[in-house]
């Protein structure tokens, strides 16, 4: 028997997920188990058995995920795949609304929403933001009571109607409504005979309603995800939807992808030992496929967050080797240059809250190691400047120069790096006519503010929150601040959701391919806490045999200094 090329290289569970095409299917895909790979092959398989491209719908959460899946599908299927809908929830909604109403809408973004709500709530930005939160929650949770009773909600919706505008959340709500009563919507829904939803554990109640509405036309619903990686409860996502899939979709087949192609055995085992303490999950047993050295998980305890940042920098330097002559001359031993093959983007530092990034950034600047903070304020500031300049483009008064326009647009910026960028932009384009120079500047800035914050091309150490790390992988992962109150995160007296927090930690751990380092401090000032931090209780859930503990207290640091000097 010749093997079907679409199934070649797949493991048993993956083949089952690919070939089970009729009827509901839940694919439980733990970290590093080849999820996207499997979805791509499943699409190819559907085409192969005669399904038409326009009958296939694959829904993802982010543009990045949609783009990646589209690219990989095209690469595998070639021409045959043209016409498949691989879209985000929002894109699906927008396409559907355009198709069945034949009208164009104005889509308003967060800034415009705040602007409208600010006016409705008395003019303060903070009140506008609070109202936005509330309205978004009503929409995402499909809170019918809220829709009927909240007066701000109703006034806001009225304003949008007058503007012929929709917000992003409407792109889910409106299709749900239309699918219940509009015949044109039915015929649109009927088109999709095979539906796949990625990251099913992250869907919120209104997205759930959308899936249910679509399932009236086809029972071929394939949900892919992992209950252990559900980390968006704060946005209204509900992991119960994932756990209830078999109840919601009668006769559902469940396939567990059980081979991990990413992490070392030790990292995988440690993370599974942690996550099995959760109750809201689908039990699964994953084993590691990569045959690599099992390096123990390093647990580094330091005096405070500054020492923590320095310890992380040192760990990176130890792997990449000397960074500069200056470092070599400072070193107390001659550098041993091995056959290592690290680049800066092999390293990531993950943390629970954005405020933790400050000390880390300082340490990287000091060490001169290139780094990128994902979701940093810099890119937000640049985005605003870019918007401001775009507005100016149609409104250039006589006598204004590129210099005067940029000086004005950057006027609130204090950061050296950004001021330096401004000066470079002026020098690079001031000889062009103002309009042309300005459009070149806007083009340059747009490259700094690409919609997807993570840029795999940027060869720098990546710093990001645990939430942002989902879906990514790195050779060496550091998790900073593995302390009680931070992981799990607790605000004042109010207890957080420990299961959600454990999942978040699990997501962080399972980003690591070769090595995982967990760090905690005895004292921390960046978190409204003083002294006496305790290590996270989650550390105890990892078998001790997998851990190598390294204690860097302040005393040790002080002891080393004089010895270093004596050698010169």
């Amino acid at each position: 028997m010749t093997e079907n090329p679409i199934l070649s290289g797949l493991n048993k569970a993956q083949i089952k997920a690919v070939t089970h095409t009729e009827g509901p299917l839940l694919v439980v895909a733990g970290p590093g188990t080849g999820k996207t790979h499997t979805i791509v092959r499943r699409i190819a398989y559907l085409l192969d058995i005669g399904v038409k491209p326009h009958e296939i719908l694959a829904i993802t959460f982010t543009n990045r995920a949609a783009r990646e899946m589209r690219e990989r599908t095209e690469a595998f299927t070639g021409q045959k795949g043209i016409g498949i809908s691989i879209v985000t929830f929002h894109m699906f909604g927008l396409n559907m609304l355009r198709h069945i109403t034949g009208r164009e809408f104005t889509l308003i973004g967060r800034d415009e929403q705040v602007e409208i709500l600010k006016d409705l709530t008395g003019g303060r930005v903070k009140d506008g933001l609070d109202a936005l939160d509330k309205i978004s929650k009503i929409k995402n949770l499909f809170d019918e009571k809220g829709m009927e009773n909240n007066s701000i909600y109703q006034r806001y919706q009225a304003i949008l109607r007058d503007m012929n505008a929709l917000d992003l959340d409407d792109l889910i709500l409106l299709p749900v409504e239309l699918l219940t009563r509009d015949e044109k919507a039915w015929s649109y829904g009927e088109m999709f005979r095979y539906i796949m939803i990625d990251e099913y554990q992250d869907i919120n109640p209104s997205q759930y309603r959308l899936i249910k509405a679509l399932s009236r036309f086809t029972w071929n619903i394939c949900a892919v995800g992992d209950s252990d990686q559900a980390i968006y409860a704060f946005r209204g996502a509900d992991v119960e939807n994932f756990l209830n899939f078999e109840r919601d979709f009668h006769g559902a087949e469940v396939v567990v992808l059980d081979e991990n192609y990413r992490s070392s055995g030790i990292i995988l085992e440690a993370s599974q030992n942690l996550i099995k303490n959760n109750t809201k999950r689908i039990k699964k047993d994953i084993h590691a496929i990569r045959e690599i050295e099992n390096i123990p998980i390093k647990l580094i305890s330091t005096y405070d967050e500054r020492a923590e940042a320095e310890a992380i920098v040192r760990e990176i330097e130890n792997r990449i080797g000397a960074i500069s002559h200056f470092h070599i001359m400072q070193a107390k031993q001659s550098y041993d240059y091995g056959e290592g093959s690290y680049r800066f983007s092999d390293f990531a530092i993950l943390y629970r809250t954005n405020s933790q990034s400050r000390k880390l950034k300082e340490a990287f600047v000091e060490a001169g190691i290139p780094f990128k903070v994902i979701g940093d304020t810099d890119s937000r500031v640049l985005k605003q400047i870019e918007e401001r300049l775009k507005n100016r483009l149609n409104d250039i008064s006589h006598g204004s120069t590129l210099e005067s326009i940029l000086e004005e647009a950057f006027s609130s910026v204090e950061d050296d790096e950004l001021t330096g960028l401004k000066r470079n932009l002026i020098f690079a384009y001031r000889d062009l006519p103002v309009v042309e120079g300005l459009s070149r500047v806007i083009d340059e800035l747009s490259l700094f503010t690409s919609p997807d914050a993570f840029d795999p091309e940027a060869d720098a150490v990546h710093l990001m929150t645990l939430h942002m790390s989902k879906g990514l992988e790195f050779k060496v992962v550091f998790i900073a601040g593995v302390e009680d109150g931070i992981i799990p995160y607790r605000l004042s007296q109010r207890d957080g959701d420990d299961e959600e927090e454990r999942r978040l930690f699990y997501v962080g751990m399972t980003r690591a391919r070769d090595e995982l380092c967990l760090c905690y401090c005895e004292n921390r000032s960046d978190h409204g806490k003083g002294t006496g931090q305790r290590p996270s209780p989650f550390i105890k859930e990892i078998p001790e045999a997998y851990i190598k503990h390294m204690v860097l207290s302040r005393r040790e640091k002080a002891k080393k200094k004089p010895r270093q000097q004596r050698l010169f």
Partner: protein
Amino acid sequence: MSFIADLHIHSRFSRATSPDMTPEGIWRWAQLKGIAVIGTGDFTHPGWFKEIADKLEPSENGLLTLKKQYRNQDIPSSCRADVFFMVTGEVSCIYSKDGKTRKVHCILMVPDMQTAARINITLSKIGNLKSDGRPILGLDARELLNITLDASPEALFIPAHAWTPHFSVFGAASGFNSLSECFEDLTPYVFSIETGLSSDPPMNWRLSSLDNITLISNSDAHSPVKIGREANIFETEVSYRGITEAIKTKKGFRNTIEFFPEEGKYHYDGHRNCGICLAPEQTKAYDYICPVCKKRITIGVMHRVQTLADRDNGSRPEGAPDYRSIIPLNEVIAEALKTGQNSKAVMSEYFKIISNLGPEFKILLETPLDDIGRVSHPLISEAIKRVRENKIHISPGYDGEYGRIKIFEEKDIKVNSRQMSLF
């Protein structure tokens, strides 16, 4: 016209540099040394970019000059001369290629601040430019060359101190075995390499693959007094185009002024902290493992050249520019006076000599010894004579430790001191 140029230095915005590396300070010391064209260094740094934009102004020849209002430092009249700045910078590329971590320093020379700005914009998308005047970027050196050429076809890209073990294109620790391994299809745009302190032209002549490459030499100075410890003599028009054309074609490139390579920090192999200094043959005998700490020995430039050479010692390709070896004047004086290089006595002798006779390079290379003898300590003119005749002894540098110069044997000093007392 013949003139001296030092095209790789660092500003006070680079790590471990002197606070005196300001436009004014560099301008002053270029004159004391006898340098007509000097690199600005560090154009990638936002603070330095601002400073050179504020304090320098473009002149007709594609180079910059210090604005009049900043020319108020004290220069002996014997040394006063025009100084031009060329916009230059250095980038440290650290990346992984063909399964190995690579670390390559590269010098960028650009025709104007506009080109510098364009390069800076591109680089700031990749990494942080403000932590160091010589920024570290996770960027393939080939890609940096590409970015440089994109910014301006007139820009010049030169691998820096090409042989040092840790941070260079041929470096033993994290470099390549050939330029084409590193730059692939763009290799033809690499016209030149900087030989670095620890190698001199004859060592580089041993590689036939470098026959078409112009070997340049610069100081890589981190403090004013180190400016010009290596440099280039051009015989062309003083302009950006004149200099870069000479580097590209060797026409108008007269010769380099070299450190004695033994004095360089990485001439021999060894371990600084273990006190182990080895010739290449000895390293091989130890199987590349340090007898003290048992870690791998840091391989020096001599060893590395031997590994990559396809010619014997002493061969010289046709048309290769000549070179002159020097020891910086303050080191010569220090050796003669048997005191520290930067001591008060050395510096006052230094200023006495240049104030009377002209800039340092003139003293080291041209000034009649009798004239030198007339204004300074007789041991100093004797020392300069020996340097000019290459009659000196140097215990080679290794693993970051400079080589130690010995111009005089113990007996020379005694004899000379006795003569002195006769006066």
